[in-house]
């Protein structure tokens, strides 16, 4: 019944993680609908899908916006399993949320059992520079330690919003093509390393 010749474009599954109130939903909604939602309402688990053009190729992005308040780790595991790439968000005005990223990172690595899973560390609320409490170099340090890119965004001003999603999709795409090739040869680790370096 769904045997259309132009089958659905490639789907990239992105998961937003991070403490409550750091702006995961705000980023998602800004990316999806170009709008900024001021009022805060805790998310349970919402998913969105959008067709975008990534480097001239039409793809679909599936965003799973998770609950920052989810305090039961076992449930979080179930969400993380379905993700192909992660945007780990914290608020630069809130050191606690930055601290929490460590835990999220560890959990993701454990669940996906993959040290090179597409992953971006995202410092949100860059528009509130005067209230900044997490120094930029500390953020960069952590990203470097993890071998992941660090980007600062503002869901309010739309600064870097597209960038984080597109960067992550690119990583996911290259991972997928890597995996495709990996079945043929044993070039996996080297290749991936190379890409990482390029982004850094």
């Amino acid at each position, binding site marked *: *019944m*769904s045997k259309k010749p132009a*089958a*659905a474009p490639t*789907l990239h599954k992105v998961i937003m993680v991070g403490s409550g109130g750091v702006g995961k939903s705000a980023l998602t909604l800004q990316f*999806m609908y170009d709008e900024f939602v001021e009022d805060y309402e805790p998310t*349970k*688990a*919402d*998913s*969105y*899908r*959008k067709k975008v053009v990534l480097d001239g190729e039409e793809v679909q992005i599936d965003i*799973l*916006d998770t609950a920052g308040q989810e305090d*039961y780790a*076992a*449930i979080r595991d*179930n*969400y993380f*399993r*379905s993700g192909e790439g992660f945007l780990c968000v914290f608020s630069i005005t809130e050191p606690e949320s930055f601290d929490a990223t460590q835990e999220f990172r560890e959990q993701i690595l454990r669940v996906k059992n993959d040290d090179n899973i597409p992953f971006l560390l995202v410092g949100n609320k860059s528009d509130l520079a005067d209230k900044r409490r997490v120094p930029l170099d500390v953020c960069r340090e952590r990203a470097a330690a993890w071998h992941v890119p660090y980007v600062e965004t503002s869901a309010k001003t739309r600064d870097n919003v597209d960038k984080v999603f597109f960067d992550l999709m690119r990583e996911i795409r290259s991972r997928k093509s890597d995996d495709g090739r990996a079945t043929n040869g044993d070039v996996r680790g080297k290749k991936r390393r190379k890409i990482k370096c390029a982004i850094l």
Partner: protein
Amino acid sequence: MADINMENFAVPDFVPERYVKELARSCVGGEELQQQKVKIEGLAEETASALKRNVYENYMQFIETATEISHLEAEMYKLSHLLSDQRTVLTNLSQASILGNDNTLSPESIDNHDLEAERAEEERKNKLNLITEKVEGCMNLLDISDRILLHEGDLLEIDAEENTALQRMHVYLFNDCLMLTCWISNRRGPMRYKFLTSYPISTIAVVNVRDLGTVKQAFKVLAFPDTRVFQCNSLAIKKDWLDKFESAKKMHIEKETSNQKKKESQEKVKAEMLESPSLSVEELPSPQIATLPDWLADVIEELDVLIVERHFQKTYDLMTSAQKTLTTEDFIKHPQRTDILKKIDQKQKALTEILLKELDVTQNWSPRGGLRSSRYPIQILNKFNMTSQACELFLDICSQTVKAHVKGVQLEGSILSYVKQVGDVFFCSLSDALTEFTMLFPKNKISSFVVWASLQLRILMSQIVKQIFTPQCALETLLNCVQSLRDQCTLFCEFGLDFRFQLNSYLRTPIKRALQEYRDKIVDSMKAKVTEDKWTPVNMHTKAGTNRFLIQMTDMGINLTKYVINETWIDLSSSTIWFTQSVMTVQNIGIKIVTEEMMDVVDICIFAIFNARLELSAGSDSSYSQKNFTFLLEVLIPLMLRLYKEEVGYDNETLLGLAKEYGVSVAPPKKSNITKYTSNEYL
């Protein structure tokens, strides 16, 4: 002539036409036929009334049966409560005995000791069974003891990648798993759905789909590696599902944490057990000391069983014999002796607690058991030197019984019959309680019974006084009620308890009030009656009426035969007759209703009524009114004084004083006085 009786009509092949024909043929003349007709009519009436009576009786029986059934129902309920209590005890026991084993009963099933939970459990099983019947290839839903259905419904599954409809599904959400089934297209029999798969709740994550292109009202279930997207028919349904998933998740988390806690505590217990090895029977016996006989070694367990089986008497016997045996020479130095004695003491405490609870009226006690049902617990408690508590509880039970019995008397018909019945029931209950009490308790406890009984009397009297001393109640009815109570109280004296003084003291104030109210009523209406009087003789219209009036007055103690003129007229004015009746009633009833020391109340009433009347003097200038006034002074007062003295044995000083004031010369009662009012001197 055919004899007319029921049998003629009762034959099965009775044909009215033929019967009438035969009747007509056999009767001679119209008159006889008329007679037959009357007879038949009488028969019909009789039958109708019999039928009515039957219906009424049936009705009453039906009501009685219904109340009996409702009582029975209550009893059954209590019984089932008791049984479920016992069940808990047994499960606890069995648990305790298989210590260490992971018990087969889940913690929930032990908690479910009350009926409610049991019913819920039954319902739960039924529900799950129903689902099993509907779903082909269904997994065993009953294998988890606390599985419950949280939600179910039809959903459309959507392809997660391509957003196209896949299939119609019926989805069940249990507290521990999610079961997916699809519709059977050509179904036969009760199976409607086919089992597809199920996911444990701990492995799934639910995602609210906010935006999926054209697909609306959808949600996702992530169950690695599957991702399933479901579309609902409406937003409300979707919200419902999401809420139910949320609650399932919460339940799961709660259970998980509680399990964890339990595990921790169990480990702790185990660790403690390892630290302090148990002192079991096998380890200890030293060779030189005689081993305990089997029954003594197991005495504690045996006591437990007996208590649970409610053989209280046997429990007591075993306890005492065990204690006795342990104090004999053979065991005086046995190492386990003190231990067992201590445990027996504990059991004794438990037993007394149960017995006390048994006797506690506030805890599911039923009046239908009667007093005898409490006999055994009380006897055992007495043996444990707990006579005081037992006595208290027993009297509480008696109170409840009395209360229930008195409550059982219906306020039907006249107040008098009600009071009679209540009195009967009350004093019978008292005597029952007394006999039971004297049998159960030693003599020195009887004082508490007396105190209790007088308290009961006070409660009863406070009720009855409220019911009978009402303004609507005639003085005569009051007298009858009071007298019936006094009679019953006197009868009860045979049991050795005289409550007459108390009874009278409770009646004193209301009687006084009733008399005063009566007096006030008469004094209030006195003036109107006198001024409105037409001052003519009263016409009784018929001879029979006159006779009735005369008899009525003679019953009161005054003979007015001489005042009859022209057969139907009474030669006294209406107000005079009214006054005579009123004041005589007060005297007649007052004397009987009060006790000796209260006579002054009656005296004052009589005096006040008379005084009020005499102050109005003749009431009118007419000579007839004068004549009536003279009747009051010279006939009524002497008569009443005489009757008073006859009744109580001394003079009514107050009335006597009043008479003197109005110049009535009251000679000491002589025979001649009687003739005075019967003479026609005033005519």
